[in-house]
C-alpha cells in the first residue's frame, strides 16, 4: 500500500507512521511487571526451599551428634580406687609405668582389648574380640626412662600390617615417658563391615604424679578442667608418628606439639602444657581415617594419694551411616506431550472447538545431549534401606526443527485455569513448523535445581560390590529455560516465557552399582529422570514432560 499526502498533512502522516511502529518487548519486562504485581507468588517456592534446607541441615546435625550409647568418652581416670567407667563398647585394661592395673569394665560385643605396659618390661596385648579385627601390639617395653616398642603387629580382617621397627624413647633428666596404646574405633561400633581402625597413643610424662602430688587444688582443678588429653589425628601418616617416637628428646616432642597444636579442636592452655605436657596421637592403621576417639582408660596411681578425673576432649565422630556421593551424568534429553489442544476459531464468532491433536509430532523434534550433576547423601536406615537426599543440577534440552519466515502472527489458544474459559493469545513469530531451505533448529532447554528425596534398596552386595536400586522425587526450581511452543493451528512456533513453570517436580529412578577401588568408591548405573509436572503452566492445555536417560557416574570416599 502506498500513501501520499501533502505537506499540510505532515502531522497526520507522521502520526500514522509512528502509530504503525511496534516493538516486541523482551521477556524481562513482563517478568518485572508480574513480580511487581504478584510478589506473594514467590513465597510458596521460597518457603518450600527453606523448609527442605532446614530439614537437611537438621538431619545432618542429628546424625553427626555422637549418641551416648555409641561413643565412649575420652579420658583417663586417676584414682586410689579402681575407677570403673561403663560403656557398651570396649573392654580396656591399662597398667602404666608400674602403676597398679585397673580394669575398666567396658563391655562390648565386638571388642575387648588389653594393654599392659610395665615399668621394667611390659607387653602390650590387644586381644581381639569377636569383631574380626585384631590388633596385637607385642613387646612394648618400658625400661626405666625408656620405652621400647617392638614388633607392632596389627591384623585386621585378613589384612596384616607389620611394623617391625623398634620404637624407643630415651628421656633425659627426670622425665620418664610412659606410653599407652589404645585402640580407637572409628565410626559405628557395631558395624562389622568397618574397615577403619585407629590406634591412639598417649604420651604422658612420668612427672605427672609429682605434679599431682603437690595437692595444689588450683592446679588440680586446672588439670581437671584443662583439656589435658588432646586427641591429635595424624591422619594416614604413621610415619609422622614413628618419627615422633624415634626422637631422643622430648624437646622435639614439644616442638612437634607446637607445630600442630593449632590444629587442635580446642586450644590447650600453655600454662598447663608447661607443667604437664602430654600428647595423644591417633594414627590410622587401615586405609581410611574415620572419626577419632579415645576410649576410657583407668590408671591407678601407685602413690594413691590423689583422686581425680582427667577428661579428655571428645572429638566429633563422623557418622558412618551417612555417605556423600558426588556425581555427574551425561544424559539424552527428550520430551513427551500429552493433553488436548484447543483449535483456534475460524473467525471471532464461531464457537471454540476442543479436539484431540492427532499427533504431537506436528512438531519435529530431536533429542539432545544434556547433563546432570550434584551431590547425593545417603543415610542408612537399615542394612538394606537407605534414605537418599541431596542437591541436583540438571540441564536438559531438545531441538525443534523449524523454518525461518517473515514475521507473522501466530495464535495460541489458552484456557483460564480459574474460569475454564478458552482465550487466544497472539504472537509475532519468525518460525514456521516445517522444513525448508531456511531450516533452523530451535533449542528448548531447561536448567533446573532440585532437592530430591527418596529411598535406596540394596538388591545384592558384598563388602566390595553392591547393587542398589534408588528412586527419588523432589521439587525443582527452574533457573533458566526457553521453549518454542507450537501454535494452535500447528503452523508456527512461538516463544513465551510467561507460560513456563518456575517450580516443578522431578522423579529419578535407576540401579546403581557401587564398588570400591583403592582410594574412592565408585557408583555407576543407568538412570531415568522424568519431569512429573508439565513444563508449561496449566492454562496451556498441552502438557510437556521432559525425559532424561543416561549414565550416572559418582564417587564417594
Amino acid at each position: 500500500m502506498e500513501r501520499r499526502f501533502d505537506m499540510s498533512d505532515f502531522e497526520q502522516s507522521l502520526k500514522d507512521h509512528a502509530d504503525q511502529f511496534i516493538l516486541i518487548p523482551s521477556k524481562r519486562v513482563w517478568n518485572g511487571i508480574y513480580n511487581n504485581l504478584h510478589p506473594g507468588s514467590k513465597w510458596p517456592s521460597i518457603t518450600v526451599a527453606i523448609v527442605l534446607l532446614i530439614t537437611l541441615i537438621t538431619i545432618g546435625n542429628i546424625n553427626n551428634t555422637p549418641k551416648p550409647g555409641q561413643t565412649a568418652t575420652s579420658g583417663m581416670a586417676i584414682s586410689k580406687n579402681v575407677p570403673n567407667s561403663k560403656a557398651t563398647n570396649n573392654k580396656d585394661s591399662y597398667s602404666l609405668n608400674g602403676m597398679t592395673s585397673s580394669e575398666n569394665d567396658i563391655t562390648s560385643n565386638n571388642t575387648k582389648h588389653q594393654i599392659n605396659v610395665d615399668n621394667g618390661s611390659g607387653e602390650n596385648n590387644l586381644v581381639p574380640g569377636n569383631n574380626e579385627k585384631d590388633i596385637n601390639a607385642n613387646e612394648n617395653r618400658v625400661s626405666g626412662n625408656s620405652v621400647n616398642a617392638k614388633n607392632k603387629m596389627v591384623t585386621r580382617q585378613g589384612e596384616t600390617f607389620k611394623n617391625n621397627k623398634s620404637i624407643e624413647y630415651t628421656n633425659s633428666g627426670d622425665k620418664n615417658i610412659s606410653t599407652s596404646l589404645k585402640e580407637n574405633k572409628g565410626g559405628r561400633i557395631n558395624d562389622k563391615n568397618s574397615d577403619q581402625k585407629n590406634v591412639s597413643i598417649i604420651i604422658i610424662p612420668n612427672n605427672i604424679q609429682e605434679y599431682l602430688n603437690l595437692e595444689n587444688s588450683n592446679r588440680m582443678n586446672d588439670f581437671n578442667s584443662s583439656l589435658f588429653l588432646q586427641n591429635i589425628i595424624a591422619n594416614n601418616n604413621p610415619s609422622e608418628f614413628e618419627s615422633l617416637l624415634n626422637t631422643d628428646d622430648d624437646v622435639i616432642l614439644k616442638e612437634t606439639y607446637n607445630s600442630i597444636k593449632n590444629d587442635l579442636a580446642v586450644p590447650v592452655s600453655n600454662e598447663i602444657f608447661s607443667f604437664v605436657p602430654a600428647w595423644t596421637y591417633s594414627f590410622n592403621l587401615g586405609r581410611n581415617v574415620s572419626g577419632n576417639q579415645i576410649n576410657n582408660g583407668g590408671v591407678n596411681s601407685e602413690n594413691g594419694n590423689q583422686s581425680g578425673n582427667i577428661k579428655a576432649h571428645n572429638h566429633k565422630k563422623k557418622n558412618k551411616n551417612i555417605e556423600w556421593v558426588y556425581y555427574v551424568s551425561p544424559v539424552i534429553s527428550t520430551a513427551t506431550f500429552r493433553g488436548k489442544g484447543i483449535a483456534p476459531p475460524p473467525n471471532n464468532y464461531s464457537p471454540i472447538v476442543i479436539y484431540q491433536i492427532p499427533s504431537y509430532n506436528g512438531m519435529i523434534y530431536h533429542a539432545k545431549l544434556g547433563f546432570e550433576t550434584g551431590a547425593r547423601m545417603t543415610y542408612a536406615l537399615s542394612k538394606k534401606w537407605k534414605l537418599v537426599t541431596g542437591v541436583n543440577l540438571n540441564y536438559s534440552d531438545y531441538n525443534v526443527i523449524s523454518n525461518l519466515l517473515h514475521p507473522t502472527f501466530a495464535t495460541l489458544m489458552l484456557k483460564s485455569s480459574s474460569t475454564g474459559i478458552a482465550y487466544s493469545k497472539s504472537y509475532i513469530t519468525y518460525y514456521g513448523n516445517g522444513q525448508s531451505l531456511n531450516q533452523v533448529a530451535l533449542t528448548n532447554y531447561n536448567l533446573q535445581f532440585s532437592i530430591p528425596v527418596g529411598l535406596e534398596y540394596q538388591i545384592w552386595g558384598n563388602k566390595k560390590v553392591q547393587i542398589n536400586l534408588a528412586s527419588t522425587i523432589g521439587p525443582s526450581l527452574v533457573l533458566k529455560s526457553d521453549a518454542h511452543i507450537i501454535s494452535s493451528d500447528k503452523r508456527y512456533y512461538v516463544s513465551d516465557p510467561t507460560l513456563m513453570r518456575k517450580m516443578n517436580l522431578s522423579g529419578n529412578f535407576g540401579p546403581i552399582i557401587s564398588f570400591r577401588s583403592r582410594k574412592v568408591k565408585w557408583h555407576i548405573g543407568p538412570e531415568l529422570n522424568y519431569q512429573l509436572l508439565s513444563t508449561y503452566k496449566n492454562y496451556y492445555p498441552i502438557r510437556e514432560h521432559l525425559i532424561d536417560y543416561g549414565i550416572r557416574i559418582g564417587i564417594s570416599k
Partner: protein
Amino acid sequence: MTEEMILQGCLGNLAAAQEALYSQFSPRMLGVCYRYAKSREDAEDMLQEGFIKVYSQIHQFKGDGALEGWIRKIIVHTCINNLKKNKKFSDSVDLVHASGIQINDNNIPSLLQAKQVVECIRLLPLGYRTVLNLYAIEGYSHKEISTILEIEESTSRSQYTRARGLLEDILIKKKILQKPKENVRMISMTN
C-alpha cells in the same frame, strides 16, 4: 478474551487477564516509549513502569474512551516523567538551537516503513523530539505541552517548528519525503 473480560480480570488482579492486556498492547506501547527513550533498554524500563501504573490505576478507567488511548496516555506521561528525571532533558527542551544541528546522512537508518520514520524522529535532539512527539503524534496542544514539560508555550511552538524543519530535512535526505515544486509529499513504503 474480550476487552471486557480482560478489564474485569485485571480489576480482580488475575494474572491471566493482566497478561492478556499486556500481550495486546505492549508492542504498540513499546513503540511509543521507543520514540521518547534514548535506547531500547530505557524504553523497556519505561514500558514496565507504565504498565505497572496501568494495572494499579485500572479501576479509574471509566470506559469513556478507548482502552488503548487511556493506556497510551499513562505510558506517555510515564515517559515524560522519566525524561524529566534527567537534568539534561530540561536544558535541551528549553534551548532553541536548531540552526546549529547537522544531520549526518550516514546516521539515517535504511529501514523500511514505520520504523524508518521512527528512527528518523529519534535522530532529533531530545527536546525537539519530545515536543514533536507530544504535538504531532500524541495530539497535545502547545498549551498542554507547556504544562506537561513546564516550559513556556512559545518555547513549545518554536521547538516544534524547528523540530519539524529538521525532520523534514532528514526525511528528504532519506528520500522518504519528496518536495515537489508546490508541495511536499511523504511516501510510505509498501506494506
